[in-house]
């Protein structure tokens, strides 16, 4: 599957199928810090991602105090 990351913007190829939680764990990303979006839809931690999916991992932390 194609995985889009931001800050900085980059793209990864990851073999599917696998669960959202597993993908985040493999990329060492804390679930509290991101949303996972597939084709414009939010997907929860237990969702299964297919090899053909395009997935955005969107950071949610902003720096202004």
């Amino acid at each position, binding site marked *: 599957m194609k995985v889009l990351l931001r800050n900085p913007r980059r793209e990864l190829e990851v073999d599917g199928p696998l669960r959202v939680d597993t993908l985040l764990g493999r990329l060492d990303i804390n679930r*509290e810090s991101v949303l996972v979006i597939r084709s414009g839809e939010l997907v929860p*931690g237990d969702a299964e991602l297919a090899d053909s999916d395009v997935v955005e991992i969107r950071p949610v932390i*902003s720096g202004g105090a």
Partner: protein
Amino acid sequence: MKCRVCRGPAVIDLKAHNANFCPEHFIAFCRDQVAKAIKRFDMLRPDERVLVAVSGGKDSLALWDLLVDLGYHADGFVIGLGIGEYSDASTAHARAFAEQRGLHLTETSLRDDHGFDVPTAAEVTRRAPCSACGLSKRHLFDRAALEGGYDAVATGHNLDDEAAVLFGNTLRWNTDYLGRQRPVLPARDGFPRKIKPLVRLGEREMAAYCVLRGIEYIVEECPMAAGNKHLRYKEALNAIEAESPGAKHAFYHEFLSKAADRFEADTAAASGELGTCERCGSPSTNEVCAFCQLVERTADAVPVSLGARRGGRR
């Protein structure tokens, strides 16, 4: 994963609440949390007018949407900060949000209306850009609220923001700051009431709310905030939260209920006597307020482009 309310397919899991939600019930959950915060901390009455401090980011746009949905008369105010394309895109999101919903948005520009921008102010003052940015926002939002006859200014500070500020102030025992870290600051001495209705919702919830409501916001991080202390505190708290869901909520809300009162004397002792700025008439502890001083200091400065700015971030 099933929605806690309807047992339909869930799109988000909130470990801190031990709950999963479908889109409809997640949006209802967010509305409930904001309504609860407004009531618990006596932020706004139904007939009051509120000015939302809008940035074009997820928190302020979600806040504006939620306040309007809850029936409040909420207008927006956005400041062009002059941080290159980031500021242009942020303002464009705010404008599009207001236009699509027929809401009233007032705009001002630091460069066009006050003669400087955040990168130039950071260069001239040799301080972190967040310092000039925060100072300008506080000054201009306060003034806009008072001049527009609003009852309060609402900001999009969420639970993660407040927990991170509390964490930083606790690390250094800044007791005068701890005494004023409240979700409501009452109007006083020429300052409008300030409210933070998102203090029961985290950053992930606010981003999810925007995605589910179709709110387009600036996803990119401010290029001038990258790597700042506030972000590092948030990362540290999220690492704790992952092991102990609900830790951020407990840290901040238990502070409010059990500890904030204890620091009020320190806050009062650190507050100087307020007079009036001789230039703009805003409340100030000096003859000229910090914002007018900044305008003066940057008046002859050559505008700094982002790429040309020196290092020296905090």
